[in-house]
């Protein structure tokens, strides 16, 4: 009986892994192929030859394979590099702003009850229900008027509509589980704000870190706003800079390589994050 269960478990695990990895692998294998064998029909499971040329092309250099095939540099490379830098900039700034604004808020909301709390909380959380498309339209119009299209500043502001609600929800739940250390601080003579800054924040830094990292991932992956607001401008972010590859079939290996690069920060982060997410034990913030 027991052996059967183990067998089913391993079978399930194998299926799970195949399910998870196949979509990623199926596209990423393109990044390692040359233009000749990219369009082979039927599509192959395992390529015969693998090259790293596409990655090098992405950054603007030619690459010659062992067999002497020339892989020309991608014409988009300046865009790609600019996109990477802009994405990084926007994501970091948006995350910093989010954390500075939300950590104190989540602290007060998780500890105290007061009159407008539920209303305020609901409004923040309800802004999650707004589709980016809906907020994009007025923002687009406003930005056209204010000349903020094509600026990183403008993009950062809209990105906040994604990061703030999520971080609020997450941190309030997390903070509720922290023991009531304020009492101790007040007896020892720390003022409210000092208790928060010097005692509470160091204590809860794990949760804060997780929230910041998730906020970064959300900003990094953001596409809708960027595609409308900064596409083709100097403020282009990574997703939009590679969207010019998107409907361009001649060089799918470049797109694949670019995608792979773009996935790396979230990959790495998620890898280390998975332990913390399940330990977070998040509590409903409205209670």
């Amino acid at each position, binding site marked *: 009986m027991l052996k059967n269960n183990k067998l089913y478990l391993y079978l399930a695990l194998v299926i799970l892994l195949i399910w998870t990895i196949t979509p990623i692998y199926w596209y990423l294998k393109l990044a390692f192929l040359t233009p000749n064998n990219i369009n082979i029909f039927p599509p192959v499971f395992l390529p015969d030859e693998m090259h790293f040329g596409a990655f090098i092309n992405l950054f603007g250099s030619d690459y010659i394979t062992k067999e002497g095939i020339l892989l020309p540099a991608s014409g988009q490379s300046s865009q790609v590099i600019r996109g990477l830098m802009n994405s990084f900039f926007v994501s970091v700034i948006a995350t910093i702003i989010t954390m500075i604004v939300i950590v104190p808020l989540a602290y007060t909301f998780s500890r105290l009850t007061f009159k407008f709390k539920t209303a305020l909380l609901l409004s923040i959380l309800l802004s999650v229900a707004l589709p980016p498309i809906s907020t994009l339209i007025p923002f687009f119009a406003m930005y056209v008027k204010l000349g903020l299209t094509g600026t990183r500043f403008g993009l950062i502001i809209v990105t906040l509509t994604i990061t703030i609600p999520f971080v609020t929800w997450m941190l309030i739940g997390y903070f509720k589980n922290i*023991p*009531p*250390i304020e*009492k*101790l601080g*007040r*007896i*020892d*003579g720390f003022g409210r704000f000092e208790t928060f800054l010097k005692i509470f924040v160091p*204590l809860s830094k794990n949760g804060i870190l997780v929230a910041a990292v998730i906020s970064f991932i959300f900003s990094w992956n953001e596409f809708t706003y960027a595609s409308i607001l900064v596409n083709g401008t100097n403020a282009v972010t990574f997703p939009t800079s590679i969207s010019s590859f998107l409907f361009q079939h001649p060089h799918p290996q470049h797109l694949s390589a670019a995608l792979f690069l773009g996935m790396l920060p979230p990959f790495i982060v998620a890898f280390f994050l998975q332990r913390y997410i399940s330990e977070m034990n998040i509590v409903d913030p409205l209670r």
Partner: protein
Amino acid sequence: MSSITLKNLTKKFGEIFAVNNQNLIVNKGEFLVLLGPSGCGKTTTLNCIAGLEIPTSGQILFNDIDVTDSPPHSRNIAMVFQSALLYPHLNCEQNILMSLHKTSISHSEKNKRVIEASEMLNINNLLNKKPHELSGGERQRVATAKAIVRQPDVFLLDEPMAALDAALRQTLRSELVNLQKKLNTTTIYVTHDQVEAMTMGDRIAVMDKGQVEQIGTPIEIYKNPKSKFVAGFIGSPPMNFIEGQIIKENGKSFFDSKILKRKVELNNILNKSNSSYLSFRPQHIHITNDQDYDLELKIFGIENLGKEIIIICDYGENKIRVISESFSSKINDLIRLKIDRENILLF
């Protein structure tokens, strides 16, 4: 050390009175226990005295100086919380030093006090460890050291032993009282455990529903409880109650109840005509073989503690407990009981 006076102290949460018009005086150097069930307002009272809560109305005086509006730090108090609350990310020595962080004491004086405190509480070997590495009892000692190092005027303790096992509680109880007598600091100790209250307090203030029902030394409260609540709350095994009514016959008063075989004559001192409960402690009722008995009940349970035996008898939905030294009946037998007339209380 300070004396503490509460004048008409009231604290409301929304519409609910957590503390209702409370008046209390704690003498200098006294160990006062605030005793009561959950929700009686004892912790709220303590929090008001500490300055962690602002009262809705009323005054708090330390040595006749009004501190009602002062923040905790300027009241020169120290507090030990439930589950020995300590800063989790600091080691014990740093935890203790934190109490002196906001004072203007010299560096060398601070270190001197930490050493003294850790010797008094025997925690020298724990100073480098973090709270999560310690056992419950050790954490309690560190929290106590953290409190005494400030040399405060008042100690406030909020059910500090609630999370510890029975054996540990016994040890720490006497150590804490001993320490307090040595330092002679006015102390208020909150608990729901009446054994702790009886064994530790100089006086006990029994609270219920936001008010002090009775205040007095342990013996006073034990022997002369002023209300049914206090009588039933203090003492283990608990007080016995028989429900019934008072009848007057031929100029004498009697207590009568369905389960009593005969009316119990009451002497004039106990002349409260509207009482409905006859009460007596388990050691004031005896098994008898005479015809001269008050109750005949079925045995529900027998608890043999070694030094005494508690016999639990069934009557209606309630139980009567009898303490006896030797015993030979079994569960479900019938026994006859007689109540000591000199130790009856009426409520």
